[in-house]
């Protein structure tokens, strides 16, 4: 078990997400930065869908109640294992009684704590990704116990080259959405700049640097999913992320690529986001 001694700002259990149930309205969910999550399981030679602990900005204090190996994946993150600073993307052994403190994600927003074999928490509809509609809880609370299989080998014979990568000034890539034509034809789609406002696991509010001229028609409720960029009546854009609901009534102007969604997950409030859409809309 890993005990949540003190929860972080927004700790959840995540995996690749919940597939096959969107037809009955169940959100996809899954790790916000799927790339960092996948790295964690790759380093530990886990199954690709093994569940990990996702921390957001400020992590908490976690007690290992059985020996295991673990990694902390993501960009630069300040963390301490039993009073020793640890690096990201590197395998460490934890003893029974070891305490991990994830202080803050310095560069980026989300980081992942994965253990050998993954966390074996309660599965619902073939996934362990926490979503309030299925688990009742939005996030992990003080005292929660996350089960994992004990693992004695302190070192794993794995390809454990650390992936030290700095976060860059990413340009997010998009393709036109079905309601692309709701934007005025004079909009420069090769480089749209936004300021990132508030965000959570469901969506990101982006404030455009220029006034987006648009049609004011509304649409009937239509399918939405992570990556869809909606245009709201007030002229802001909402990028839907992993926990987004399956339908929405705002025009779907753009669709971000999967890789861009991972990058967006690591951008902080107040930072500039650039979206590039070079493909001409096939829709009318």
């Amino acid at each position: 078990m890993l005990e949540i001694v003190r929860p972080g700002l927004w700790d959840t259990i995540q995996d690749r997400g919940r597939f096959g149930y969107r037809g009955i309205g169940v959100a996809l969910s899954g790790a916000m930065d799927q790339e960092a999550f996948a790295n964690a399981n790759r380093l530990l030679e886990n199954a690709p869908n093994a569940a990990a602990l996702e921390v957001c900005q400020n992590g908490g204090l976690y007690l290992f109640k059985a020996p295991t190996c673990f990694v902390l994946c993501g960009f630069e993150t300040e963390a301490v294992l039993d009073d020793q600073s640890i690096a990201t993307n590197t395998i460490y052994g934890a003893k029974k009684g070891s305490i991990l403190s994830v202080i803050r994600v310095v560069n980026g927003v989300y980081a992942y704590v994965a253990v050998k074999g993954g966390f074996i928490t309660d599965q619902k509809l073939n996934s362990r990704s926490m979503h309030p509609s299925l688990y009742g809880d939005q996030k992990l609370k003080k005292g929660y116990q996350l089960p994992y299989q004990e693992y004695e080998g302190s070192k794993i014979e794995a390809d454990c080259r650390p992936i030290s990568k700095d976060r860059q000034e990413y340009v997010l890539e998009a393709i036109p959405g079905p309601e692309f034509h709701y934007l005025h034809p004079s909009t420069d789609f090769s480089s749209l700049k936004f300021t990132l406002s508030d965000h959570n696991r469901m969506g990101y509010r982006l404030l455009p640097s220029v006034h987006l001229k648009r049609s004011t028609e509304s649409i009937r409720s239509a399918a939405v999913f992570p990556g869809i960029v909606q245009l709201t009546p007030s002229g802001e854009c909402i990028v839907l992320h992993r926990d987004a609901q399956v339908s929405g009534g705002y025009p779907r102007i753009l669709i971000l690529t999967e890789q861009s969604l991972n990058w967006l997950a690591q951008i902080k409030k107040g930072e500039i986001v650039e979206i590039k859409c070079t493909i001409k809309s096939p829709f009318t």
Partner: protein
Amino acid sequence: MKHKFTIYDMGQDTLTIELDGVKPIELKHIASYLKQFFDTDIDVLALNQSLTLFKKNCATRLDEVHSFLSTLKIEEALAPMCWELPIHYNGVDLEVLAEKLKKTPEDLIALHQSCTYTIEGFGFLPGFFYIGSLPKALQIPRKSTPALRVPKRSVAIAGTQTGIYPIESSGGWYVLGELAFDLFDPDVQHPVFADIGDEVRFKAISSDEFELLRAQHLKGAQLQERLLCSK
């Protein structure tokens, strides 16, 4: 296929098909044919005359899907399932809604039970389905300020539709009453008993009947049997 349709490439793993004038039950059948076409567990969201397919790299098969649908024949006489849902009409919004629609709460309750409806699609929350179409006299735009907490099992109306909240949520629909059982069970393989295209009737029950039904905790096949309309 007799319906005109357009297919949108929504990125590599998603396709949306919009069909003109298609009925919900036809959508259900087209969805099942598409599942056969892909010969695998493909996720299909049916909503408002559209089908959205989620499957790895499905966009590369857009042309194939197009020719498949062009030659597809749907049976004309499709028999929908019919469910009779027991409702305790004690909703918090009955009074205010009666005032807005210039009726008595009793009128609203009677009107709501006066038609057979159709499940038009899923969305919003897990297990939330849109049930249409309300009689004209009950149609009203959603609240301008949504309620922060709409309780689980609330039966509510807005626009042309009825919806039932599978879990507690915020929401802008007017609550008429409470369904006597849970709509969504994430711990079973088929978490929702009904499907798009099914017919729905509402039946008022007393608070005693409501308590009795709640206490029975019907699930799965037993629940379906209890809810099936008598022909």
